[in-house]
């Protein structure tokens, strides 16, 4: 039996497909990521089938009462945007007044801190297996690496990489994500304290905290907060709850704490990053 040959020779096929591949390679990211978006949109029910450590298992049913409907969320979002606009106008008016005061009094005054700004962003893609989100705001919108990202009043991660118009958010649960947190607990005198520690993701939907002395009393269900870092966050913000607490095998003098983040990444379309420096969009 004679071998059936295709109409085109191998070099032609290689050249054509290589060329198409190169065209795809140099497509603008916004265009090329559409393919991924469409794929995820169509096959999301299949893609979501997962091991017990999936993101949907993170949400506690008891916490669902804390969430609002989409309509209410949009209304709050709109109000928030209006308030931000008013705040910007007020800041501009105040700055003008201060300048006038400086001129009149001949003295130089330090401008007071005007507080953090919120940079709203929509999620472009959710690369959940890598615990990353792509958002549609970037360097041109004032985003910087390390800024906290918030959704539904909880810190969900930090800005990991910033491009001109987009940015990557590394979720708390990613294995490479580390941050300083404060854990609610009691000291030896039964006084409430917030114990500072490092928290890192386990890559499977949870986070771990180590190196907290066993002299502290920490219970299951205690809140864990993002530590207020100068220049990044001016007040602690809730991250999650203590899920499990046990003696660290490698050092029995320390607790090993498993934290369940409060985020429900599957139901988030928008997030905002906290920028401590006021930024005027160019």
């Amino acid at each position, binding site marked *: 039996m004679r071998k059936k040959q295709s109409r085109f020779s191998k070099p032609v096929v290689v050249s054509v497909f290589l060329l198409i591949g190169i065209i795809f390679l140099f497509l603008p990211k916004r265009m090329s990521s559409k393919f991924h978006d469409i794929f995820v949109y169509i*096959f999301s029910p299949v893609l979501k089938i997962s*091991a017990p450590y999936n993101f949907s298992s993170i949400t506690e049913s008891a916490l669902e009462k804390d969430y609002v409907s989409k309509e209410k969320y949009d209304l709050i979002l709109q109000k928030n945007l209006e308030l931000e606009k008013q705040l910007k106008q007020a800041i501009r008016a105040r700055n003008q007044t201060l300048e006038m005061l400086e001129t009149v009094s001949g003295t130089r005054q330090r401008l007071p801190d005007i507080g953090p700004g919120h940079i709203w962003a929509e999620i472009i893609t959710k690369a959940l297996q890598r615990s990353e989100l792509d958002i549609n705001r970037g360097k041109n919108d004032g985003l910087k690496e390390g800024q906290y990202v918030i959704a539904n009043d909880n810190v969900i991660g930090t800005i990991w990489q910033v491009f001109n118009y987009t940015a990557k958010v590394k979720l708390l649960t990613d294995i490479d994500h580390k941050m300083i947190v404060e854990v609610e607990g009691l000291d030896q005198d039964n006084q409430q304290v917030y114990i500072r520690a490092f928290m890192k993701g386990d890559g499977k939907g949870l986070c771990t905290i180590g190196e907290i002395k066993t002299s502290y009393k920490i219970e299951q269900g205690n809140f864990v907060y993002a530590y207020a870092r100068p220049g990044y966050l001016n007040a602690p913000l809730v991250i999650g709850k203590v899920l499990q607490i046990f003696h660290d095998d490698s050092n029995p003098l320390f607790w090993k704490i498993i934290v369940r983040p409060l985020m429900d990444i599957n139901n988030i379309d928008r997030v905002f990053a906290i920028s401590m420096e006021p930024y005027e969009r160019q």
Partner: protein
Amino acid sequence: MKGNDMNWFVFAITTLIAALIQGGNLLNFASFTEYTIKPDLLIILLIFICIYAEPSKAVAASFFIGFAADIITPAMGPNMVSYVIVASLLTTFQRVLRLNDLLLDSGLIFITALITASFSSVISCFTTDISCHHFLFRLFATALYTAILGPFIWLLLRAYSRFLGLKIKR
């Protein structure tokens, strides 16, 4: 092998299933270490097609497997290019590469997975700012896991090959 005439519909379904398993959370069941190392099913399929399909069709198929590998990530292109290049090399030596030995097949999959993933990463570096922590460990571990699992998946693919339109001498 004689009279190969690929069934593109079955091939598309097979590639789609592999991409869905690869890109979704399903394979997390079989992942290990804290870096969630998973076998690369699309590479296993790529090498199989390159060895047993007619060269020009294998190259075309490799492009679509590369497309599937790219579509499960936000960046398009690196895998398409690297898969086509690797496929053109593999098809050149396809007669030599029909080893029919589990250990040798495993070695072939390991080397090809390493080369393809390295090549994709190098191309990604030129076009995106994507960086990956513990890159070398992930690269080697994924290639090793793929190489261990690959020959067994090939056994399934060999049994399934007539539906793909590939006639393999046993």
